C-alpha cells in the first residue's frame, strides 16, 4: 500500500496539513466543542464496520476454496455474470482482458485491471449478489472470490483463501496505477483578446 501512496502527489501536503491539524486538535480532543451525538459502543462499531484495507485490515477470519466457490458462483452469480464470468449484456464480465490495456479496446475486469484482491472480496461482500446483497456468509465470499481469481488464472484450482492469504495475492495489474498528474495539458500561450472587435 504505502509504496503506492509514497509516490502519490497528495502525501506531501497531507502530512504537512495533518501535522498542523493534529497540533491544533490535541487540545480539542480533550473537550469536544458541541458534545452532540452518543458514544458508539464497540458492539455497535463491530456491527457496522465492514471496511477492508488492501493490507487485509478489517478482513474477518475465514476461508473458502475454489471448489466451494464454483458452487456459490453457479447458484448466486452465473445468472447475471455468465456461466464462467464472461458477462451477459449489461452485466459486467468478471474475467478476461489480460493484455488488452494498451489496445484500442481495453477490457477492464477483475483479472486484467483490479490492483488488489481485497477489493474483490470487499465489493462482493458489500454489494453482491446485486438484488440480495449481504446474503452470502463470509466463507462463501472467500470461496467465490477464490473462484473468480481462479477463472482469471490468478490462483490455482486447489487454492483456499483466508484472511491471511487474500491480501498477499499479487494481482496482474498491481503496478498499473499512477497518481494524478493534472493539470496535464500544455496551457495556451498568453493571448490577447480583441475586446474592441465589433459583433458579427
Amino acid at each position, binding site marked *: 500500500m504505502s509504496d503506492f501512496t509514497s509516490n502519490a502527489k497528495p502525501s506531501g501536503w497531507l502530512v504537512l496539513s495533518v501535522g498542523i491539524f493534529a497540533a491544533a486538535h490535541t487540545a480539542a480532543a480533550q473537550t*469536544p466543542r458541541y458534545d452532540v451525538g452518543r458514544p458508539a459502543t464497540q458492539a455497535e462499531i463491530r456491527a457496522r464496520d465492514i471496511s477492508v484495507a488492501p493490507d487485509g485490515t478489517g478482513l474477518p477470519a475465514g476461508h473458502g476454496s475454489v471448489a466451494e466457490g464454483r458452487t456459490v458462483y453457479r447458484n448466486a452469480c452465473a445468472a447475471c455474470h455468465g456461466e464462467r464470468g464472461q458477462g451477459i449484456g449489461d452485466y459486467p464480465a468478471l474475467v478476461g482482458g489480460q493484455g488488452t490495456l494498451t489496445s484500442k479496446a481495453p477490457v477492464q475486469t477483475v483479472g486484467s485491471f483490479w490492483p488488489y484482491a481485497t477489493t474483490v472480496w470487499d465489493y462482493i461482500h458489500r454489494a453482491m449478489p446485486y438484488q440480495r*446483497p449481504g446474503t452470502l456468509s463470509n466463507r462463501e465470499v472467500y470461496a467465490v472470490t477464490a473462484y473468480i481469481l481462479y477463472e482469471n488464472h490468478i490462483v490455482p484450482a486447489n487454492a483456499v483463501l483466508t484472511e491471511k492469504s487474500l491480501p498477499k495475492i499479487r494481482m496482474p495489474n498491481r503496478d498499473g496505477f499512477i497518481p494524478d498528474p493534472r493539470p496535464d495539458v500544455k496551457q495556451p500561450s498568453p493571448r490577447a483578446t480583441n475586446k474592441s472587435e465589433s459583433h*458579427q
Partner: protein
Amino acid sequence: MRTEISRRAFLATTTATLGAVASSPGSLPAPSQVSVPPERLLAPHRLLGAPRRQYGDRSPYEKSVRYFKPSSTPGTGASRTPLQDLHGIITPSSLHFERHHAGVPQIDPSHHELLIHGLVERPLIFTMKDILRLPPVSHVHFLECAGNTASDQLGQPGVDPQMSHGLLSCSEWTGVSLRTLLEDVGVKPKARWLVAEGVDASRLSRSLPLEKALDDVIVAYGQNGEALRPEQGYPLRLVVPGWEGNVNIKWLGRIDLVDQPYMTRDEAAFYTDLMPNGLARMFTFVMEAKSVITRPAGGQHLDGAGFYEIEGMAWSGRGRITRVEISTDDGRSWRDAELNSLVLPKAVTRFRLPWRWDGSEVSLQSRCTDETGYTQPTREELVSVRGLNGTDHYNGIKAWYVHRDGKVTHV
C-alpha cells in the same frame, strides 16, 4: 402525445374550478359536463384561477425532464439534466442529474444514523436530530459525474447540452461542515484518510484524503431550501466541492478514519483514467474547468439572421471562474463573454455575449479560465495526452454548428 395528455389534465382542472364558481359548494358538476372553450385559455384574466396547493408543481406547459436510457439493470445508471432549459445557476432538485449503482434506498430519517469511528478519540453516532442541532452552513456547488462529456471525448458528441454535458447540476447545499464533526470526535494524528460509506444496496464507499475532509466538505441534509431528494442522498450525503460526483457519498451512514486509502472498487477499478501506455491514473478527484453554450445550442433553431444572446455555463473544481471567451470562427479569434453577477467558487457560473447572426454557417465555442489560471483545453490537446481509453474527467472545448437554415447541431 405527452403534450396531449397534460393539456387534457389542464382542461380538467380548469373546468373543475369553473364548476365550483358556477354552482354551490359540494355540488360540482363532473368535469366532463363543463368544458372551457380553448379560446378562453388565451384570456386567463376572464377565469378565476386555480386554488392554493400544499406542495407546488410547475406549470403544465413546462415539459423539461431528465433523460435516461432504459436498461436491464435499472438500479445502476444515470439520468441527465436538461441544461438547455435551465435559468440561472441553480438546478431544480427535480431535474438534478442522477447516478446510482444499486437504486435509490427508502430511508426513514428517524432511524438514520451516522457513525464516525476508526482513528478517533471518541467514536460517535449521530441521529438526524443530533446533526440538526449543529451549526449549519450553506454553499452553492456544482456536482458533476466523472464520466460527463465522455461521448464528446470519444468523438460522438452529444446532440444537445443535456446529452453532451447533462451529468452536471448545481445546488445550494445545507448541512454541517465535516470539519465540525471531525473536531468533535477528535481525529488521531495517525489518520490520513477517511472512508465514507452509504447505506444503499451497494454500500458505496470511497476514500478521501483528510486534507480535503478538513477543508470544505459538507455533511448535507438540505438541497435548494428543502430536504435532500431521495435520489440525491436523503436524508444525509457528503458534498465534496469540486470533486468527481462519485465521492459525494449519498445516504451517508458511516465515516471511518484510517491511515491509508482503502482501495474500494469505485476508486481502485472504476473512476480511474486508463492512459495510452496502459497505466491508469488513480485518485483523479478534481473536475477541471469546463464550459458549454446552452443557447444557441444543438437541438435548437434560429429564426433567421439577427440578434441572439449567446448564453452558457462554466464551472471549475479548482475555484472561481474568472473568464469565459467565445469564438464564432472555429476558434481563430476569441471574445470575452460577460460573467453574470453570481460568480461563486466551485459553482456553475453563467456567461453571456450579445451576438448578431449574419445567416452564414458558423461554429460557436466557449472556453473558460479559473482562478488558478487554468484554461479549458481543446479536445485535440486532451486526446493527444490522454488518448481515448480513459473516458472520465474529459473537459474539452465544445462546439455547436449553426447552419444556414438556422438549425443548430452537434456536428
